[in-house]
Structures are given as structure tokens and as C-alpha cells.
């Protein structure tokens, strides 16, 4: 018990004395994950809309496949991408391995299934008349899509947060394709993994707390955007 207290205390102390090295790592983490989310969002939105609103043969199987892809371990994504980007792999010429760009690609692959699956379930539960009404009232295809997103903002934001949570917290693909190289591709989670490996649990926890505090900040900001949602009664 005592050691846990000491370690937590130490973690908090480290957290308050922000140093440039720490902020560098935080910068890499958020840059990579936010970029990955932003890039994944448009295709995921379109795919989700397609799966929710257009009936085509095999649609049902496609939904199951998207859901399944949520269960792909991050190390597997890392592995596959590593083999593709390796010098001996088909895309080796691009020299992307161990760069932030490669990490972004990995995280896009991880974010898209969860984003698509969550957005699909959100759009699926949205009233069909919403789309019809918008189109009849003169909305273009994109304007109607934007209206749908606003109508489903609770679900959309929940999907974004779940996807963001998944990729900011993942370590398997980041360490495999990024390489955890100091000053280049070290993220909060790969740094935590490293500290843990060294047995430096306090440092690991401190980084974990930093990550959580920043994630909370992001959430509160989004919460303000989302509004308070419907009020309720008891029966």
C-alpha cells in the first residue's frame, strides 16, 4: 500500500513539473492520433451511411466484416504493415518504416473499423424521414449528410471518442511501425511500455495520468459542443 502511495505521489510530482521531453512525446502522440482520426472520418462516414441506408447484395456480410475488424489486435496491424513497409516488402521503396507517417497509417487502419461500426449503428437507428425531408427541402447530398451528422451528434461524438480512445491508447502498432525512437516516434504509450519494461512503474503511471488528463480535456470540450442532451422524467 505504502509503495503505491509513494509511486502515485511521485507520478503526480512528475506530472506537475512539465518538461520539454515530456511535451515532445505528448506532441507526437496527439499529432499522430488526431491526424489518423481526421483522415479516417470521411471514408468511415460514407461507408457507414452506405451500410446503413443502401441495400445491396452482401451488405449484411459487409457489416459483420466491419464489426469483426474491430477485433484485430494492434500488433497484427503492426505486423502486416511492417511486412508491407519493410525493405524486403512490396512498399519498401517508400522508406516509411519507423516514421510518424507510417504510424498514422497504422492508426487509420485501427480507427476505421470502430468508427465505421459505431457510425453505422448510429445512422441505422436514425429516422429514415430525416434524410427524405432534407432532400425534399432542397438539401444537396452533402448538405443532407451534414444534417444527418448533426441529428446524430451524440452517436457521432461517441464514435469519435471510442476510436480516439482506441488509437491514442494503443501500443502494438505504434511500437512496431514507429519503433519508439526517442525524439522521432516515441509516443505516450510506447514510452509507458518502455518505462514498464524497465520496471520504472512510477514514470509509467505518470505518463498514463498525463494522457488521461489531456483526454479528459478533449472530452469536456467535445461535451460542450454536444450539448446537454434530453432531460428526463421518472415513471
Amino acid at each position, binding site marked *: 500500500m505504502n509503495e503505491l502511495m509513494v509511486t502515485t505521489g511521485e507520478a503526480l510530482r512528475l506530472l506537475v513539473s512539465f518538461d520539454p521531453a515530456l511535451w515532445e512525446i505528448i506532441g507526437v502522440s496527439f499529432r499522430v492520433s488526431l491526424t489518423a482520426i481526421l483522415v479516417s472520418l470521411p471514408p468511415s462516414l460514407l461507408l457507414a451511411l452506405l451500410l446503413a441506408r443502401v441495400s445491396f447484395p452482401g451488405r449484411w456480410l459487409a457489416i459483420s466484416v466491419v464489426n469483426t475488424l474491430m477485433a484485430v489486435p494492434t500488433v497484427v496491424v503492426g505486423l502486416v504493415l511492417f511486412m508491407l513497409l519493410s525493405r524486403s516488402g512490396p512498399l519498401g521503396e517508400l522508406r516509411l518504416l519507423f516514421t510518424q507517417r507510417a504510424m498514422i497509417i497504422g492508426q487509420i487502419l485501427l480507427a476505421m473499423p470502430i468508427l465505421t461500426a459505431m457510425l453505422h449503428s448510429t445512422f441505422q437507428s436514425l*429516422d429514415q*424521414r430525416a434524410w427524405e*425531408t432534407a432532400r*425534399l*427541402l*432542397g438539401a444537396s447530398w452533402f448538405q443532407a449528410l451534414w444534417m444527418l451528422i448533426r441529428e446524430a451528434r451524440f452517436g457521432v461524438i461517441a464514435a469519435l471518442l471510442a476510436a480516439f480512445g482506441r488509437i491514442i491508447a494503443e501500443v502494438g502498432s505504434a511500437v512496431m511501425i514507429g519503433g519508439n525512437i526517442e525524439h522521432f516516434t516515441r509516443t505516450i504509450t510506447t514510452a509507458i511500455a518502455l518505462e514498464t519494461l524497465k520496471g520504472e512503474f512510477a514514470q509509467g503511471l505518470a505518463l498514463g495520468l498525463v494522457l488521461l488528463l489531456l483526454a479528459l480535456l478533449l472530452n469536456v470540450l467535445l461535451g460542450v459542443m454536444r450539448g446537454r442532451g*434530453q432531460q428526463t422524467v421518472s415513471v
Partner: protein
Amino acid sequence: MLEVCHLAHGFGRQPALWEIPHLRWRGESLVHLQGDNGSGKTTLMRLLAGLEVPRQGTLRWSLDDAPAQPPPCPGRLLYLHQQPYLFDTTVAGNLHYIARWNGWRGEAMRRRIDEMLERCGLAEHARQRARSLSGGERMRLALARAWLLSPRVLLLDEPTASLDRQAVRDVAALVGALHASGCAVVLSAHQPSELTERCDEHWYIAHQRLGVETREAPLPA
């Protein structure tokens, strides 16, 4: 204006709801579509609006001297759902959506929206969330959205069902004015009212057939 050939529709394994061998409508009459619950009024309107694809047959609109085309004709043909969908924002926000979609801007647009809210008795509710409106107010807002757009064809699915008497009179007057200015209108309603009295053409759905009956246009009220 509207030309329908051998149209038939149904759902699932059921036989056809109805068949319409031929129907040609010049759009100059004010049409009252009648039929019992489940006879297919809503379905017919959705087909006319292009929201549903017919099982069989064709359906063409020629609007504004453009060549005949199947629906949808967004922006020019408007269908008002029997239970309208209100966007999850304020009452005024619902109207602003339409302004944005149709590229209207500026002070004139804002004044037009205020005027429309006033006319539909929603001025006091402008900042209220649309989803918290009463049943009649919801329909009023849906009608306000329609009036704002001034389409060429208006398909109104039981617009007066939840309105109070004064509102029914107002709608009747407005539909009359729109019709006079050249808008083609089809409306359905179970109960007779000032609105249905204005109609000079009646389409009946019964025994899976559509019947048409015209009578003299009434004098303007």
C-alpha cells in the same frame, strides 16, 4: 404535368395495393385524396414524390416546361410526411436549414423567416427546441417549412389532422392562395373541413383502385 402508366405497388409478398392503368393530371385542380386507413394514400404520395420505387409501371412529372422525368424533383416537388420529421434544433433553426440549403442569405431571408413564423402562430416559439413542440405546433412548423420553399407541386399528407379550427382555416386560405398562384396541390384528410371544401377534384382509393371525380371549382372563400 403528371403522367402515370400502369402503376402498381405493394409490400412484401402481399398482392398489389392498387393498380392505376392510366392517370394524367394537368395540375390545375386542387385534389383531395381519399380512402380508408391503410388504403394506400400515403404510399401513393410517396410514389409521386419519388420516395418509393414502384413495383411496376412508370410515373413522370413535367415541371416548368422541362422534359418529362420520373421523380424525385427536389426543391420543386414537396411531400409533407403524415408525421413530419423536425430537425433536432430550434424552431427557427428548422427554417434556417432550408434557407441555407437553398442559398438564401441576408436580412431579407431573416425577415421572411420571422414573417413565416408569425403567420403559422409560432413566433413565440422561435427559440424553443422543435422536438418539444405540441402536436399541432409540430405540424404548423412543417407547414411553415413548406410555405417557405414555395414549390411547384405540394403533396400534403393529412396536414390538418392535429390542427385546431383556426389553424385549419388558415391552412385552407394559404393552400388556396398557393394554388391560385400556380402551385399544384394534392392533399389527404379524413375529416371534412374548410380545406377539403376548397378541393375541386377528388381521388378515391377503394378496393385497390383509384377513382377520379371532378366537380366545379368552388367560389373563393
